[in-house]
């Protein structure tokens, strides 16, 4: 086999391997490195996904691989420290939801199915911040709620 063809073949094999390995790495890099750099340093990034079946806000990933076989776990109280800059990445795994934190007069924002919607706020006020789905989305809409627990900066548990 001529040397030129040997090199072409080797280049072809390398191109395939680079593609097979490089694409997942590229996607991982976007999620783990590039995305957090979008936000101010020190931000607390929280991903919340709304699932109509069961009326759940979850911090678990609801993706193609798992949505059909596992019921996502309802998120527990989410701890924050007073003064945190919080970035919420809100998703819907099924249909149109919305999100609001009434006590902060934040929202409501629509969270359409399959979209990722961002919301940012500063947790300046210690205490319990209830969040919920703001529009009737499904029979279990009433269960689509959760809480942030903002711990006071001076160490007092305001709640």
């Amino acid at each position: 086999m001529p040397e030129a063809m040997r090199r072409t073949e080797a280049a072809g094999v390398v191109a395939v391997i680079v593609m097979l390995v490089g694409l997942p790495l590229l996607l991982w890099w976007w999620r783990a490195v590039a995305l957090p750099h979008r936000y101010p340093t020190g931000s607390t990034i929280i991903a919340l996904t709304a699932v109509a079946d069961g009326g759940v806000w979850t911090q678990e990933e609801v993706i193609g691989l798992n949505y059909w076989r596992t019921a996502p776990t309802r998120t527990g109280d989410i701890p924050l420290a007073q003064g945190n800059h919080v970035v919420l990445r809100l998703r819907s795994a099924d249909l149109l939801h919305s999100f609001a934190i009434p006590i902060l007069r934040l929202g409501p924002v629509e969270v359409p199915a399959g979209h990722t919607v961002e919301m940012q706020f500063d947790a300046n006020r210690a205490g319990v911040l209830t969040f919920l789905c703001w529009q009737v989305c499904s029979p279990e809409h009433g269960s689509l709620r959760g809480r942030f627990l903002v711990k006071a900066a001076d160490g007092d548990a305001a709640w």
Partner: protein
Amino acid sequence: MATANASRATVPVDLLERPWRFDVFARWPVLKQLVRLRSFQFLVILPNLFMFYFFLIAAVYGTPVGNRNIIIVFVWILWWFLLIALLVPLASRVWCTICPLPFFGDWVQRRAVIRVRPGKSPGTENQFFGLHKRWPKRLSNIWLQNFGFLLLATFSALLVTRPIVSAVVFGILFAVATGLALVYRLRTFCNYVCPISGFLSLYSMTSAIELRSVDKNECLKCKSKACIRGSEKGWACPWNVYMGKLDRNNYCGLCFECVKSCPNDNISLFVRPFATSDVAMRGYDEVWKASIMLVLAFTYSIVLLGPWGRLKDWANVSEARNWGGFAMFGGGQALLALVIFPALYYVSIRLAKWYGRADAVSTRDLFLQYAYMLVPMGLLAWIAFSVPLLMVNGSYIISVASDPMGWGMNLFGTAEFPWRPLWPEWVPFVQVPILLTGFYYGVRSINKVGTALFPDRDQRFRTLVPPTALLLGVTLVFLRLFIG
């Protein structure tokens, strides 16, 4: 070839009047130089392989919402439309040129992604790896593809809405293609198993291009038969096609290996008129394929475009969970495609024989010969069904291109582009001319076959009446669906 053991038609294609053809490679030699590059197919498959790999990752790790996941939007809206409405009618099986599904199978079978291995493997002048067995003769037809496509179509509501289901199906196709390449020789998967290949083979008959010998006599004189046996310049035809006998597009995957290996520089790409060249059906498997495709265009139009909610619920078992209804839907669809419509067509052929007093032609031969009318009709019905899907759902392509996995990317700044149907009020005005074009080409094709079969004009006319009436009935049913 896929129908090597099928019953032969009474009208050899050579006896049919040949339409004009235009030699593309003679006019633009640079295209020929391009496809003769050893790396040509690799270079066109690699980007496609990259895309499919990305689609599979997106299906697994991306959003489960179909219209926000690239695998659903790009495969079942964009790719399907391009394939059925543009690639097949205009460029035959050019999809097979760039299809990534057999890539890994070819790789393990050839132990090469670009270069050729001269050598000896049974029936070829190339060195292949794997068991290199012969595919069973009784499966050397497109029946497996027929049943496979019908099965996939039955679960299409799941397939086209659930990313993970699409990923599993494509993953299985990748695995089967690779596994079969290890055991059987050449592209057994593409020739006999791939459900996509089945309908491509049928509808490529209508295509406006063909890859053929420039001079068939040159092929008959050729000693090496390098097109089918391979050489140091090109692999043996993966589709096991001998160019000296190739007279239809059905089983040519346009890999262009024969262009590379032909020692006489006798293979070229030709442009030809649409739906008027390959008008001979060669086996019952092909006729049933035509029936299945036509019936599926009908049932899809009912389920996806029609107003009948109960039928939609039956088909969409993943949402409605009505397994009894789903069984009725799937069973009814199969019955219509495999029994009822072929029976109607058979009756029309019996009537044609009786009314035309066509005793010299057997019912079987007439059944095979006139069946081509279902091909342009079916293809255009599929296009008429697919165009509104793109018009109504095409805007998803713009938003998903920016955020292909629903992760919140915004690559091109269009992630929040709203869903906006494109002139939905014009849908029937687009569908009707497309459908009538299918009817026109269907009638024209059986008239062409009839001319070769029945020199007597009156007899020909009489034999054409019943199948044409059936075709007209099909057209009217579709018109009823499309415009109410």
